[in-house]
């Protein structure tokens, strides 16, 4: 096929080596090292203020680094200006040029690089086609809906066929339906074109559905880098355990659970609401404190000897506050963390699992 936009531009790997960024006294990014394989879709995930944008902007060269080095495709780009890094970027606010038409917005970079008119036209046609923008090329950004603006920003980023594309919460201004559509579209595009994607979001659903690799950041530090499934199934820290999954994982000090009170202190037991199943007898017994009906599911907060466990039940199972429930979980769904070191204690899981088994 003669379409140069399809798989023609191979991605480049990105490496951050002990990168830090200070704003005044505070370390917005603190000694972060990340490996981003060429052609991968990597998501930087974390709560607001954890340094995701700052990290991304350092990769883009919009922000200088205070410590450490950054490599793109093996070249040290630490001191290079953005315009020399051969990357593209989509901003949260899209940063479309309001005075330029959609077409002019998309080919802005080509114009800057003095690509000749014929080539510009051809590429524009292809990109517009790909993104379904062909009808809108003459409009101004203000005349577009949010999703269409999003696509224009995307078009501007991919037309240059840069090996690396950076995105900072590109979907956060869209409504839920559109967000879902764009997720699928973005992921498809990246796979088709093969560039390296670094994608910032604080929305774990986005991260989990799109990423090859998720880098979880917390307070300026990299907490865990893993595939979405690993992150969900084997979160490395209590923070990761609570951050990934809605509703979040139940994380209870063992000292608060009767059968486990003689375990070493400082341990946390983790179990996801959806991993808890109702049992007729055995397991833990609790009282329903509050109920949230979600249609497909119902969430029940159950109190078990002073601690609250959240349990996900099918929407059709109606429960009411005050009701007594018994529930259990399979050993494979248990997580144990050491509160002090912050790490997993997988060695303890069989022991704990057996203790919680209905006697």
């Amino acid at each position, binding site marked *: 096929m003669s379409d140069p936009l399809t798989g023609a531009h191979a991605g480049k790997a990105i490496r951050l080596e002990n990168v830090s960024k200070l704003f005044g006294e505070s370390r917005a990014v603190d000694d972060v090292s990340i490996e981003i394989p060429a052609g991968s879709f990597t998501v930087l995930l974390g709560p607001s203020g954890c340094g995701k944008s700052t990290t991304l902007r350092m990769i883009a060269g919009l922000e200088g680094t205070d410590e450490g080095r950054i490599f793109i495709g093996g070249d040290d780009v630490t001191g290079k*200006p953005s315009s020399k890094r051969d990357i593209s970027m989509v901003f949260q606010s899209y940063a479309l040029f309001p005075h330029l038409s959609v077409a002019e917005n998309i080919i802005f970079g080509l114009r800057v690089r003095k690509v000749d008119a014929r080539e510009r036209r051809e590429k524009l046609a292809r990109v517009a086609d790909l993104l379904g923008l062909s009808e809108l090329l003459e409009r101004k950004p203000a005349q577009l809906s949010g999703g269409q603006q999003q696509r224009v920003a995307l078009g501007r980023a991919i037309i240059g066929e840069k090996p690396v594309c950076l995105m900072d919460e590109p979907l956060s201004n869209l409504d839920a339906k559109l967000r879902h559509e764009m997720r699928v579209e973005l992921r498809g595009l990246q796979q088709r074109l093969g560039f390296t994607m670094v994608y910032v979001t604080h929305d774990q659903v986005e991260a989990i559905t799109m990423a090859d690799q998720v880098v979880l950041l917390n307070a300026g530090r990299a907490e865990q880098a893993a595939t979405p499934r690993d992150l969900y199934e084997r979160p490395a820290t209590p923070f990761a355990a609570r951050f990934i999954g809605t509703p979040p994982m139940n994380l209870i000090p063992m000292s608060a659970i009767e059968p486990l009170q003689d375990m070493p202190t400082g341990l946390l037991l983790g179990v996801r609401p959806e991993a808890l199943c109702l049992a007729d007898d055995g397991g833990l017994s609790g009282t329903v404190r509050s109920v949230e009906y979600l249609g497909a599911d119902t969430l029940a907060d159950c109190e078990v000897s002073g601690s609250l466990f959240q349990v996900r039940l099918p929407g059709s199972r109606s429960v009411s506050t005050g009701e007594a429930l018994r529930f259990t979980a399979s050993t494979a769904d248990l997580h144990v963390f050491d509160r002090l070191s912050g790490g997993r204690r997988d060695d303890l899981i069989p022991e704990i699992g057996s203790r919680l088994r209905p006697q």
Partner: protein
Amino acid sequence: MSWSGPTLDRVLNTAAAWTLALLWILPLAYAIWTAFHPAAYEARFVLTAPLTMDNFAKAWSAAPFARYFLNTFVLVSLILAGQFFLCTLAAYAFARFEFPGRSLLFSLVLLQLLVMPDILIVENYKTMRLLDLVDTIPAIALPYLASGFGIFLLRQTFMTIPKELDEAARIEGASFLGVLWRVYIPLAKPTYLAYGLVSVSHHWNNFLWPLIVTNSVDTRPVTVGLSIFSAIDSGVEWSVINAATLMTSGPLLIAFLLFQRQFVQSFMRAGIK
């Protein structure tokens, strides 16, 4: 724009900015030089020149400046208050209401940008005479109160204020004037500041109309006092003129120096989040 070290580009820009700044401040610098040195040093710039306050003394005694200052202050306050009041009301109407005659009236307002009151001196003098206001401070102020520029500027600002704020205030029970007072005016503060500064500096320095419409020391502004030193049969005495200039525009300069940070910053904060 934060990143990047001291590049050649940046050095050149800084140098150019400073050069221009020096050129721009030259007249003021010269005024200060001559005002504090004897007349003999008007055209000779030697560091050893003796300092003197004589020029100020001479300038001060040439006219009842104290009274003139008071008059100017009253005049400028009156104009500013009047302009704020009239322009605010009119701008509010133009910015937030639909009513018949809107575009016609607005073009009449814009017309005032073109028709300078300075050309209409004779007609306006007749009006003042009719109103029996000749030789009063209000007579100096009246022709300038409804300022097309002010209305235009405030209208633009009001239009940028999100409509929800207006609606929120109305839901909370504010009347249409209440909305203006509690929402629009406070949010347009930077514009008021900028416009106020421009207006004050313009009217502080206005000369011909005040001279013609006033007769007595009790009503005249400082510029009339200042004019004693210019257009002189006996040649220009720069040291005295400049002393007088510094004296009369001093308060404005100082006010700007004091408020410039606030002034510029409030401009920057004008964007509403």
